[in-house]
């Protein structure tokens, strides 16, 4: 954005990001590639949907993220009886002051962990729409601004589909990426066991490495990452391919396309570059597409792979 940031990018951008990686890596063991994507999503001002089994460290990740950035974390456990006002907050008539008082809900935290989002009703799910897309909530016709760095980590349980309300397309499109953390490998599991048996004092505690203001600056830097016209062409080609594919019922929306470009920029930043390569676009393709493609077959991955293999990537020249 400004020349100072670009020139000082080596230190100003990479050092805090590296520290963030290290910190998160020490908490969520053996998942460096997922951590990388989470950071990218954070830098790209997106929200993340974790599609995973219970006990794979979703909450741990969210907590660590909040601690590293010195922000507040709110957690809502989504149940069928959760109401929209439980999420956004509500106006309460104060008998003493004889006026309505606003009681902010969990969305006013810096980080919001919405656990098992698909178990609450669509009504409550929709309460998050405005917050996620526009970073504000409107309660009784009064808009309330949320923090610029507002970040939602939602989880959904894939097995437990009984009694669940699948997320609507509109809801899904608000998420930037979908991730599966998955079970750690054997070595990581041994490390987890070993770390858990330490005395509480010796346990690694994530420390704040980045202020929210720093994060905001980094997010602005990400916006300024250069995208070559040929890479833009490539993105549009890919997006159009998803719309024209017979196996896909709902392709990528323009919002999805914007998300894709932004996270590709964030990914390039994480690789220490100030421009986006086709390789960056391809790297983030799977998490970006898996959240928003509605396919006629259950095997989304193979559809994504086919598209990524057939749309010609721009070559060196």
């Amino acid at each position: 954005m400004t020349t100072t940031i670009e020139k000082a990018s080596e230190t100003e951008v990479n050092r805090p990001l590296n520290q963030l990686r290290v910190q998160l890596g020490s908490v969520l063991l053996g998942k460096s590639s997922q951590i990388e994507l989470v950071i990218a999503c954070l830098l790209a001002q997106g929200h993340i949907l974790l599609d995973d089994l219970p006990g794979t460290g979703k909450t741990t990740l969210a907590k660590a993220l909040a601690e590293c950035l010195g922000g507040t974390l709110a957690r809502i456990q989504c149940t069928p009886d959760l109401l929209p006002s439980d999420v956004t907050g509500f106006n309460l008539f104060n008998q003493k002051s004889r006026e309505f008082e606003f009681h902010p809900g969990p969305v006013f935290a810096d980080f919001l962990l919405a656990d098992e989002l698909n178990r609450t009703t669509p009504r409550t799910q929709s309460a998050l729409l405005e917050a996620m897309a526009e970073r504000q909530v409107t309660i009784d016709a009064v808009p309330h601004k949320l923090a610029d760095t507002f970040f939602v980590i939602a989880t959904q349980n894939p097995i437990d589909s009984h009694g669940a309300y699948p997320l609507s397309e509109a809801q899904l499109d608000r998420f930037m990426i979908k991730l599966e953390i998955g079970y750690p490998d054997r070595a990581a599991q041994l490390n987890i066991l070993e770390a858990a048996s330490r005395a509480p004092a010796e346990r690694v505690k994530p420390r704040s490495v980045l202020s929210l203001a720093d994060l905001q600056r980094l997010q602005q830097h990400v916006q300024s990452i250069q995208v070559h016209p040929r890479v833009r062409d490539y993105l549009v080609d890919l997006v159009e391919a998803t719309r024209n594919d017979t196996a896909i019922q709902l392709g990528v929306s323009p919002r999805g396309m914007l998300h894709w470009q932004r996270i590709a920029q964030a990914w390039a930043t994480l690789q220490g570059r100030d421009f986006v390569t086709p390789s960056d676009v391809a790297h983030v393709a799977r998490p970006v597409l898996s959240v928003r493609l509605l396919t006629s077959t259950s095997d989304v991955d193979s559809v994504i792979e086919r598209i990524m293999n057939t749309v010609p990537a721009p070559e060196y020249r």
Partner: protein
Amino acid sequence: MKLSQPEYSRRSVEASMLALVSIAAIWALRYFIESQSLFMAEVVSVGTLVLLAIMSHKLPAWEHRLTVWKPVIACGIAVIPVFTAIIGRFVGQPIAHEMAALTALGTTSLALGLFAQTSRLRSMSLVISGFPMLFVTSISDSPRAIVLAVLWMTVCVWHLVANHWERLDVCLPNAVHRGAIVRPLTVMAAVVLCVLGGVLVRDKFGESKRFTWGIMPTSGGSSWSDPAARSGVGRGDAAIAAKDHAESFGAVESDIFLEATGSTLFDMFSDSLGQPKIKVKSERRQGLAQQKVIESHHRTSKSEKGSGSFSTNRNQPLKHESLRDATELAVLQWSGPAGIRLAMNRFDTFDGIDWRQTADLRKESLSPRVIDKGTWFFDSALWTQAMAGDGGSVGLLKVLKLETTRIPSPMMTAGLHVKDIDRVDFFGIEQDGTYYMPGREKVPPLTVFNLASLSVTEDELLSCSVSASAPVRGTDAMAPSEPSDPELRDVSASPNALTPGLSPQSNGDKSNGDSRVSTQTYLSPKTNAAMAAMVRQWTSGLVLPYEKLQAIIHHLRTDFTLDRNTTTRSNNPVDEFLQTKRGGEHLFATLAAMMAREIGFESRLVTGFYVSPTAFDIGGGHANVLPEDVHVWVEIKLDEHRWFEVEPSPGYREPIYTPSYWLVAKRFAAMNWPYGLGAIAGISVVYLTRGVWIEFFLHVIWLLARFLIPKRQLRVAMWIIETRAGLAKQRRPVGRPQRDWLIGMTGLDQDLRQRMRRFCDVADQVSFGTAHSIPRTAIDDVVGILTTRTIKQLTRGISH
């Protein structure tokens, strides 16, 4: 032994190939001079042992079984030529010592090449195979021997470079000075040197010639010198013509019909062959000099109609001194192919002196067909063939002053058409098969005939078979159709053959003379035997009747001299002609017809006009046929209704029978098969070693890319790498970004991965970032490392 095992394939194959080339060179020398059975036995036994040797290497199942026998096989291959030589001596078909020794050297080197375990022994195989190669090439007298030598040298250079310059090729990528370009470059340089040397001494290639029996050429000179000098006395038609016919540049002699008695049409128009000798005293008709009485022409016209006989016994032609004797009026005009013959009279029976027609081919009417509103009259026998056959041509004939009812027509004329004429009774076929206009005195002058004639392919002629005893056309008229046994014919001939003077006059009574004359033979036994011997000599080794006929015609046209001024001295013109080899075209035609009968064809003599290729009048669009174009030739029977012509007289153009494309292709293949084989071998060698050549060309392209701007260089580099990956069957999916693909290809090689990443960073910066230039060294590094072989090895590592 363990160590050298993986090297087995290539080195051993190359050494064995060199040995095989040298053995092939020796065998090519021996094949033509030795006993075939013994030779083949040697080839087969060596081949069998070599096959066993190959199987012992290649097939695991056999390897175990044959291990014990390996030394035996090796020794066997080496000593087989010695055994063959001993057996050859024993059975009385000796092989030359030096040949046996050379072959033994070759097989020894083959055995070494197949079984050697150390490179020292393999080098020995190389040297041993090199000696016979050198020796054989130097003693061989075939210009093609050089090809084997060049082949041997090429493989040898290849082998040496491979062994001694690229030994470390597959070691650590960084530690090796790369040689991908050295090997093909050296081979190419060697080939270019060979070719250049060959071009320099190309004059000498054809120099060594096989000695043949007969007279040594004494005139010297080479193929560049005057052909006349090279062929010695040879034909010399031109020289003889210039000597004997000095006056031929003078006045044109065409004073005609002066002293004709019983003359034929041929006699009427050609006085250059003289007049038939008058055997029986008869009333002479006296023609008048042309310039004096043109009107008398009409009065003598009766004598212009040909009679039923044609004599080969002739007087000296008359000389005409005055220039004013010349008449330049064309008899007829012909628009159509030039150099052809227009037949007017045909004769199928020869009595030793005279030709006559005995078979009756007369057809009173022709079958009319309307084509494009014009009425054509077809010979019904040829009509079907005219419809079925694809070929054929229509010529235009304009009759000017022909004093006969016969219509001159090319061979195999199937039909004719005159504008606006649709009357069937206007045309017919004469007794001898010639078209004519019945009931007239002569063909009306200035009539234009459209003559449709069939064409015949050479293939048909080649497939034409002869029937030794079939009588011509169902009658017993055609006696000369072959009694195959010359003795028999001689016996049957003897009573009458020497009876001369069966002149047309004496045989005027047709019903009486017909059967007698036609069943009698035509030549004296002596003449017959001489002719038969000549035919046998000319046609020895030939199988197809048409080939024999061609040989006869060729010999007649080259060995005999056309001289119209010869006079028949004896009463046996053909015999005389056989001895002097000099005579007019009537003798050529007669002898050719007789010889054709000798090999089983049915033949007939034809007189008519020759459309000289030089007589074409460009302004008029037609050829003028003059009185002196009168000519005699021969027709040979092809099938029931078709006769094709042959031209035995030198100086006249031979009829053209177009071969089909299939026949042309077969002949071409038969002539050029060694080159074809060589080309196939060359192409397959190039194909088998294609990897090396493609790599070489990619290298060259990369070297040339130096002159492009850096971004273009990057593009070329990526194209080269992707082509190589394609060769290694590791093609990049189009959707895969090149960066991911390149890094993914490096597999587990950390060092390579780092270098590739550095390269991709620079390339990304140039392609999608802000940088504008990329240093060539950065690209050079990647292009140098990622050869096809490296890619194969890297990806093999991944897949395992």
